């Protein structure tokens, strides 16, 4: 067997915001840079981001990176690394202004400066009052960002390999990363992309859950590849959820619906929020509403044949109000739930939105395992865990993460490539052979589990056992169940064995990545017996000693899940920032 090899200075897997920002750095430094993407770059999931990107520009009112840093540490429920958070918040104004110079059409103030709006969790003067920090390009911020970065990359001669899927990481006997194995979709030909430095910017894995706002493409390929190559995954128990996604579809129903008078009901039609939040009722905060919904479902008061969702009722509102104030919602509901909300309530369920954990890196984008940098390997964006989001991400901090760490990892790669020997070393074959064998197994297996069935089993297990609100026994069962699902995945069969654009095989390969993320999530969540940020357990309740169920004495640490033997390890949170004082532990309340 011999797999053809293509050689570069740098190879980047992923052409979303993070990958494109890193590529630009490398190409503009004159390095030979390849970017691989499953889809055309500007159709990466970054296109979905509407809200904006945060930076303490202070264009509308006073702001400071230190305040932004405070908000981010607090938002992370103190699980974020304070060196990385300081780095990100200090860099924010630079990378946003840089993006403006790359041609990003930001909304503007009358005086020509970038217009900024408030966003949840962003405050002035160390948590005092909301501040305008989010910069947006109408409701197309992500789209505009991808366009600006893509155009600039084309100009800088970045080489794009579009409709290529990276399959596995290649490491030599000492663990140094040499590149990736990848498949050209059109022909199913497998190549090695060998490079001095390799970056993963493959985005998130929100598709592990049955209900997710993520596009189908978010299958955690980078996480799967890293895990198979022996790299641990950090803090995978932390996922952000939104309370109301359309059940079965995941499309978001904005909080505005409850603002206009929408009511949540269980199977007997009861307005259950009255029991959980007598004053705020349906307008209680996100986590309170999500928790109440899950409790209703778990206690058998869910709706539908599987009793797996609740109903959002706006039938009592004047149809004219619905049409004028909530036009998009009627459309979404008819399209994705099959109900006209003027006539019948909308089925909804808490829906996964964002992955806080990922491949462990430092703020330079270098992958760090057991305290050592993995030579030649970098990660940035949603796939990486720097960790700036800790246990909970603030809105608009993700696009910022892409820009800051895309750029910093690009710079680290440039430094590394400059000191590396001119010629690439001999390519280690073991990982290449394993990867080819993995694809071959799918090609030759006859009889087994359908890909859709394996995926659905995984998604249902994750949603039920490891959703927005977690229970001790359910998690313990969930660990056993997800390991059963893994066996289904190992036995997947595809009907189509053809060589051209074999989407069945691509999807099977994606599920092989998703299952690694699912295991990491379930096992890490089961072990963490506290509540922190987005990880909320019924058995870790609010007590005077552990407010909000957070147990700093035992759990102020990052989880590391290793694929081999499903081992867990832990490492301390970096509490020391780069230049300022530590932001001291406090109860997180708003």
């Amino acid at each position, binding site marked *: 067997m011999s797999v053809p090899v293509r050689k570069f200075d740098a190879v980047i897997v992923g052409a979303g915001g993070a990958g494109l920002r890193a590529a630009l750095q490398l190409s503009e430094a004159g390095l030979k840079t390849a970017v691989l993407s499953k889809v055309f770059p500007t159709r990466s999931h970054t296109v979905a981001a509407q809200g904006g990107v945060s930076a303490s520009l202070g264009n509308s009112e006073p702001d400071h990176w230190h305040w932004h840093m405070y908000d981010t540490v607090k938002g992370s429920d103190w699980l974020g690394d304070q060196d990385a958070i300081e780095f990100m918040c200090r860099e924010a104004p630079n990378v946003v202004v840089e993006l403006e110079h790359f041609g990003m059409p930001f909304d503007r103030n009358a005086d020509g400066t970038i217009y900024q709006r408030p966003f949840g969790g962003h405050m002035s003067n160390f948590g005092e009052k909301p501040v305008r920090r989010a910069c947006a390009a109408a409701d197309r911020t992500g789209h505009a960002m991808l366009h600006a970065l893509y155009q600039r990359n084309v100009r800088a001669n970045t080489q794009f390999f579009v409709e290529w899927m990276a399959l596995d990481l290649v490491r030599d006997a000492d663990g140094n990363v040499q590149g990736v194995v990848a498949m050209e979709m059109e022909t199913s030909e497998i190549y090695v992309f060998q490079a001095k430095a390799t970056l993963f910017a493959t985005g998130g894995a929100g598709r592990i859950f049955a209900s*997710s706002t993520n596009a189908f493409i978010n299958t955690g390929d980078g996480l799967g590849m890293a895990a198979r190559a022996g790299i641990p995954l950090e803090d995978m128990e932390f996922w952000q959820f939104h309370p109301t996604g359309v059940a079965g579809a995941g*499309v978001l129903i904005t909080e505005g619906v409850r603002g206009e008078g929408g009511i949540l009901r269980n199977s007997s039609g009861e307005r259950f929020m009255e029991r959980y939040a007598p004053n705020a009722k349906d307008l209680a905060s996100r986590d309170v509403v999500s928790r109440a919904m899950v409790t209703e479902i778990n206690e058998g008061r869910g709706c539908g044949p599987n009793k797996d969702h609740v109903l959002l009722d706006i039938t009592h509102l004047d149809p004219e109000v619905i049409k004028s104030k909530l036009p998009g919602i009627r459309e979404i509901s008819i399209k994705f739930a099959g109900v006209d909300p003027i006539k019948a309530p909308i089925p909804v369920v808490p829906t996964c939105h964002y992955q806080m954990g990922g491949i462990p890196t430092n703020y330079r984008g270098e992958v760090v395992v057991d305290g050592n940098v993995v030579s030649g390997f970098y990660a940035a964006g949603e796939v990486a865990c720097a960790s700036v989001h800790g246990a909970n991400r603030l809105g608009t901090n993700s696009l910022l993460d892409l820009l800051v760490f895309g750029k910093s990892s690009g710079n680290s790669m440039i430094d590394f490539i400059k000191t590396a020997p001119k010629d690439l070393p001999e390519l280690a074959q073991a990982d290449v052979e394993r990867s080819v064998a993995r694809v071959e197994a799918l090609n030759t297996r006859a009889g087994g589990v359908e890909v859709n069935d394996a995926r659905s089993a995984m998604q249902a297990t994750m949603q039920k056992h490891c959703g927005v609100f977690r229970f001790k026994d359910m998690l313990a069962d969930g660990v056993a169940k997800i390991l059963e699902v893994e066996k289904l995945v190992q036995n997947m069969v595809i009907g189509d064995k053809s060589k*051209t654009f074999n*989407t069945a095989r691509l999807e099977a390969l994606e599920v092989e990545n998703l299952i690694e993320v699912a295991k990491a999530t379930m096992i890490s969540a089961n072990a963490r017996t506290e509540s922190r940020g987005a990880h909320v357990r019924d058995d870790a309740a609010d007590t005077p000693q552990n407010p909000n169920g957070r147990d700093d004495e035992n759990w102020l640490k990052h989880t590391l899940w290793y694929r081999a033997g499903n081992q867990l390890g832990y490492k301390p949170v970096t509490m020391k920032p780069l230049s300022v004082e530590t932001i001291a532990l406090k109860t997180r309340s708003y």
Partner: protein
Amino acid sequence: MDEVELKRIVWRSRRGLLELDLQLERFVAEDLPQLTEPELVLYRELLQYPDNDLLDYLNGRSECPNPRLWPIIARIRAAQR
């Protein structure tokens, strides 16, 4: 259109926005096999548009500047429940 081209179209119906994935998945499963050659060419052309524009056309929030694509847009919209 040969098989490779057809399969390429199926893959390109995967987008960066969930709302598009859901709508196009349904259309690809139910309607694509019945499309005539000229209709397939139009669908392929429609897929060239950026995700946000495409979503606006499918939701009727804005009109596609190319009237030749209106029938295929209408057809995708009709494929929805």
